[in-house]
Structure formats: structure tokens, C-alpha cells
């Protein structure tokens, strides 16, 4: 009886040993993958930490910039209030009025509307009355 022909096992490719060897390599790869994963995770966490740190720093600088802008705006606000106060000075207004040819009236007329100037909800109506009186003036 002739045994069926079968290829000779190549060195290192022995049947049962082959499977064992594969199992061994699979475990090694899994370990390698795990370490790789851990490495990537650690690296990512490291970069994430750096990124968050940079983001925080950037935000802090932005905050400082905004605070600086706020201070500038506040200083500007007071400069403008000062300018407005100077513009309201009676001496300046009188000078400007004189330049415009305005003079103080020689005769004064007083129009009196009963109750006007007092407290109460009817003040607006009294102003309407006054406007009517003024409207009737020549």
C-alpha cells in the first residue's frame, strides 16, 4: 500500500507546533496593540493637557486684553464726560450765544398756567394747556 503523497513539512512548519506558534504570535501582537493603544492614549492625553493649557493661557491673555480695553473705554468715557461738562460751562455758552447774535430779552413776559409746576398726574395735561396758550401767542 502506498501512502498518499503529501508535502513534506517545511522546517519550522510542523503541524501542531504551527498552531501553537500562531497562538503565541497572536498574544504578542495583542500585547503590542495594547501597549500601542496605551501609548497613543497617553500621548493624546499629554497633548490634550498641553492644548488645554494653551487654550487656558490664550483665554487668560484675551481676558487681559478685554480688561485693558474696558479700562481704555472707561477712561475715554470720563474724558468725554469732562468734555461735555466743559461745553456746558455758562461762560462758553454765553460766548457762543453772543457769537450767534443772541441777546438777553429787554422785556420779559410771564405766562402762568394754574397748577403747572405742581406734583400730580395731571401735570402732562397742564403742559398741554400751556402749549395751547403758547400756540395762541402772536
Amino acid at each position, binding site marked *: 500500500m502506498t501512502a498518499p503523497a503529501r508535502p513534506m513539512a517545511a522546517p519550522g512548519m510542523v503541524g501542531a507546533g504551527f498552531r501553537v506558534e500562531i497562538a503565541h504570535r497572536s498574544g504578542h501582537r495583542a500585547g503590542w496593540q495594547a501597549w500601542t493603544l496605551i501609548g497613543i492614549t497617553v500621548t493624546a492625553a499629554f497633548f490634550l493637557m498641553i492644548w488645554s*493649557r494653551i487654550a*487656558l*493661557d490664550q*483665554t*487668560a*491673555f484675551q481676558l*487681559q486684553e478685554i480688561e485693558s480695553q474696558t479700562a481704555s473705554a472707561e*477712561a475715554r468715557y*470720563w*474724558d468725554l*464726560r*469732562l468734555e*461735555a*461738562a*466743559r461745553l*456746558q*460751562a*455758562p*461762560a462758553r455758552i454765553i460766548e457762543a450765544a453772543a457769537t450767534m447774535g443772541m441777546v438777553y430779552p429787554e422785556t*420779559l413776559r*410771564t405766562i*402762568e398756567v394754574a397748577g403747572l*409746576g405742581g406734583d400730580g398726574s395731571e401735570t402732562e395735561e397742564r403742559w398741554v394747556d400751556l402749549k395751547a396758550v403758547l400756540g395762541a401767542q402772536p
Partner: protein
Amino acid sequence: MGGSSLRRLNARLVTVGVLLVLAWGGIGYRLVVVQALEADVYADHGLDQRLQREILAADRGTIFDRDGRELAVTVDSVTFYANPSEIEDPTTVARLLAPLLHQNMLDVLDAISGEGTFAYVARQLERDDADRVIAARLPGIYYFTEPKRVYPMGELTGHVIGFVQADDNQGLEGLEYQYDDSLSGVPGELLVERDPHGRTIPQGEYQVVPAEPGSDLVLTIKTEIQFAAAEALQRAIDRTGAKGGSIVVVDPATGEILAMVNLPTFDPNDRSDADPAAFRNRAVTDVFEPGSTQKVITISAALEAGIADPDTIFEIPTTIERGETVFRDSTTHPSELTVTGIVAHSSNLGTITLGEMLGAKELHRNLYAFGLGQPSGVDFPGEASGLLRPSEEWCAVNCVASTSIGYGVSVTTLQMAMVYATVANDGVWVQPHLVKEIVDGKGTRVAVEPLQRRVIDAATALSMRLMLEEVVSGGTGGYAAVAGYRVGGKTGTTEKYLIDEQRYSEDDVVASFIGMGPIDEPRVVVAVVLDSPRQDDSGGKGAAPVFAEVALAALHQLGVPPDDR
């Protein structure tokens, strides 16, 4: 290679090896010391270099007039300084810098040529002026910002507001001094880590205790009336040649001072050329003998005591002699006068008659009750109390007579304004004040509540007002008439007492007029005092026209309708 040379080689190697070991050992030891044993110390050293503790200046409160107009504001200003050691060519820098600062080139050169590393070049410039200098980027010239107090109305309110010290914004005069604690606020503190460029290190140490801003003051002053008073006083000084003068305008019902003006004055924004004597608010700090304006107290005391009423007739002698003093009237009038006539004609002799009927004690009591001889308590520093000696110390011969007509006592313009305000306010004296409200940093408003006291009966006050009206309509105060309004008041002309020489001046007088309007329900009291007028040197001619101008402006500004409408 011989044995001896091998030994030498070995010895060298051993030596080098030992040295290396020692060196590394030293370095290692130092490393352990720095990094482990004394790590905290060095960490603290480093932190100290980065940590900066800064005082956060509190914003000084703003001062407003009664209508909310700014009278004193704090703004950021720019101060320039030089580091002379960094300036290689001071002449060129001074030549470029001087026109930008509007300064003399030699002054600038002097400032930047000195020894050392710091010299002020220009202090507290406003931003617009500073920007030109900053843009020039001159070598060795640096700047920093600091708060600056600015007074938009300048000399108009200089005496009332006062001013602060430029370095630290502490109040030195006026309301700035009086209310310094309220205006200053509480400084804060900032603890922060900074890099060598002065930038804040993010996420470094940062602790802040915020500053509490100072309170704002709302004054009783009405700027328009203040301006009208200042203009009228200046015109009066130009007209009469007076050395100076004061005007006080008061709301008699509330004690609020609507205007307080003195001339000569000064600009609190630039005091470099001002005479320090001009800093005094003379209406509050300087005294004078009131003369005839004080007769209102003597007469009202006589009415209160029931000695006379306005229509009681007195025979007026031609003179009254008390010891070596002979009293006369300076006006011509009938030989018989009612009490109203005595006031209208400002009769010294009639008033002395009534004063002597009252007696020293009663006269003194009334003078004191009207506020003479004591500070009014106005919220202003350096108020003079004036002079009113106790009646027990009065001389027996002529003190009652002279005191009755306003000699032998001294008063401030404000005190006399409040005497008339008492008459105007139906006999109730209200403490004068310049601050209406204090508004703290949180916006809480605290109104000032002035003291009040009744001095004379309301009926007496009304009688006095009608008598004062006679002074204007038919007496010595004709120039005080205000078109459209019924007003009243009293003239006063006193010889000026020269304190240094202990005698009365033969040339100088104090001319005054104090009055009120409208007479039925007075809304304003105006006191005008002129110091040593050369022309129109009497209360009737010098001061009364000023009253008319100021009273008219004040009544218009307060919206008081005329009596003749």
C-alpha cells in the same frame, strides 16, 4: 614604557579621577541642596521675583452741582519722565520734545540732562496732548498713567470746591478737603505674577481685593446762579474799584447755598501763578463789622420784646453821646420816625434808642440766637465764628449803642446771609450747607438733614420783611429794586477796621447789601459785600445794584414768577 612613567601616569589619572569625583560630588551635593533640601526657599525666591503686590487706587468721587453737572472729575492723565542715562543727545531730544509739551526748550533740557535714571518731564497731561508725545517715540522718554483731578468750571467754583494735591489726590482745600474721607474711597490690592516684561502670567498667582470707589457729592450750588453772581461781582469791582468782594445766595427754606462767590479767585486747574491768599473762601473765613445790616436783629429783637411795633413813632435826636463817642445819622430824615422809617432810613440814632431799651443782655441773646459769635456749622473747612463778646464784658458807656448798629461785633458774609434767611424763613434759622446729597459707590443716596431752630416769631419775621421792602421802595436801598419782583433788604456801610493798626481806616469801607425776594414768600436771600470800593463806596450805591442783578438772575433760574404778573 618604564615603571616610573607608568606610575606618574597612574598618579595623574588618579588625581584627575579624584578631581572629577569631587567636582561631580560637589555638583551632586549642590543639586540635592537646591532641588531637595532648600527647594522651598528657592521656589519662594522665584515667586517673590514674579509676584507683584499693587495698590489699586480707589476712584475719587465726582462732585456735581445740584443739576448733575460735573464740577470735579477724575480722569486718567499721562505723566512723562526721562531716563537721562539713556539719552545720548539731550539737546536734540529737548528740541523735539519742548514744542510737543508747550514748554521752554531750556527747561526740558535741564530736566533730561540731570544725573540719575529718573526725572519728571511733564506731569498729568491730558490724553490728547500726551498722544503727540507718545507718537514721537523719543529715546529715554517714558510715560505712565495716573489719575488727575479736573475742574471743568475752573475759577467759577474754585473757592467752593477747593483742590487736591497733585501727587496723591488728597483734598487740600474747600469741599475736596472737607469731604476727603467720603470722596477718597478705600484702596484695593492686587497680588499677581508677572513675567519680566510686566505681563500677567496666566494661571499664576492672582488675588484681588477690589477698591471701593469714593462717594459722589451732589452740591446745593446751581451753576447758573453761581455764574451770574460771579459776573455781577466782577462788574461791581470794575465799577467801584473795590479790592474784592463776596456774594452768597441762599435758599432760606432749606439752608441750601445756591451760590458762593469771592473775588479775587483762582483756577484750581492751574495754581502755579495763583496768590495763596486767593485760595480763601472769604465768605466763610473772613470777618467784617456788619454795620447797618445788623440793625435787622436789633429791630426784630425790639419787636419780639414788645418794645415797639412797626408803626411806633420815635423822636430821633440829632446826636447821641456816649462817653467820648458821638453817634450821628448819615442820612437826612424827619425828626420823628416810625420803626419802619428807622429801618428804611437806616437811622443809627433810632436803632440805638431801641437797642438801649432792650439792654445789653437781651441784645446779646438775640445776636447769638441769630447765629453771631458762633460758627454756622456749614460743611466747609476753616469757618470763622466771628466776634460777639459776652454781654457781661461789654463796656458800660457805649457798647450797647455801638453794638446795636453793628459795631464791636464781627461776622462772616455767610453768617449775615443766614440772619436774613431767618427773617425770610418766617423766623426759623436753618443750618447752611453746600452738600445736598452723598451718593456712595453702590448708588445709595444720603440726603443732608440740616439743623433748624426758631429764632423769632413768624409774625415778627413778616413785619421785618415788610420793613425791609420799604428800604428798597423808599429808603437807602433803591438801587436794589428788581423789575417785576417785590424785594427787600438792608444796606450797610462800615469803616474798615485795621486789625494790625488797631484803628478804623479813614479811606476804606466795607459796603454791603443783604436782601431777599419775593418779599411775601422769599425764595432767595442774596448777601453782597464789597471790600474797599473807591467809587460808589456805600452799601446803597456799591452793593445794592449787585443784589438786584443777582436776585433777578436767581429768581429767573429758579422759575419764580414775578409779582407784577
